[in-house]
């Protein structure tokens, strides 16, 4: 019986190993996930706050035609862009963050979805 380490490498395995790209740290994707999660959460939070407070809602009317949706969505997009611009360089070479970032992303996104659901924000 030939040990696993002593078994001859097949041509396919040899080609596969020689063409396999190098491992990449997961920091950049973690940065995108966190920035995205925070942006989605922000949209939900701002939407719910606007429903709860007329003054805040009026302050988001950055365009008469679009109404408060203008402020809500511009804030969301700015949070995403700034968040990613800040986190990506910080986490570029970091590794092992993906699981934590994915969990944070899911939690923030779920809260964001909740905050944009009319039955929820109408409670406030």
């Amino acid at each position: 019986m030939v040990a696993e380490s002593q078994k001859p490498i097949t041509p396919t395995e040899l080609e596969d190993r020689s063409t396999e790209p190098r491992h990449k740290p997961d920091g950049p994707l973690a940065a995108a996930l966190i920035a995205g999660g925070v942006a989605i959460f922000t949209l939900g939070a701002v939407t719910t706050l606007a429903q709860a407070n007329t003054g805040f809602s009026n302050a988001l009317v950055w365009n008469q035609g679009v109404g408060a949706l203008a402020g809500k969505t511009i804030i969301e997009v700015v949070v995403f862009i700034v968040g990613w611009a800040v986190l990506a360089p910080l986490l570029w070479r970091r590794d092992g963050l993906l699981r934590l970032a994915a969990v944070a992303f899911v939690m923030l996104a779920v809260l964001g979805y909740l905050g944009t659901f009319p039955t929820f924000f109408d409670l406030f």
Partner: protein
Amino acid sequence: MQLGNHEAWALVHGMFLGGIFLLAFSGGLSAFYGYRRQWLTPAGIRERIVRLDIGTSVMAVVAWLTVLTGTWVVYPWYRTPAPKGADLHNYPRAYLLAHPLLMNWHNFGMEWKEHIAWIAPILATVVAIGVLYYERRLAYEPGVRRLLEGIFIAAFVTAAIAGAFGALITKAAPIP
């Protein structure tokens, strides 16, 4: 058979961009599912990543264009306040709110659609970033592939909800 300016933009927003979005999703999902080192030769890994790059990038761009045209072009026409005594058929939001059986198309349908739609481009962009960053390495990272695939599907479902409500609201109260 003529289309007014408002109708043309509504078509661009809903059907043209929506159609491209659907195509990009279909192609991207198929590419994601099959992008595994066990199923592909090295040449296949090199070839298929191009399809993934294009599919996810197009979907992200189209998602942004859809929400931008919807919010900044079509939405203001929808929510134009109706002058006193005006024919409400020309003012979709006011028309829906004036009819008890139709008001939830605005209070629930449009209120949900206008907000949830803006989540789809964020999700699609995160996926495109992930694919463009990992490139061929994605075939060797099944956990990353499944994560991005899941977010890709979530982007589609989110956009589909917004699109469905948009179509139904337009049916109840067309943009004049």
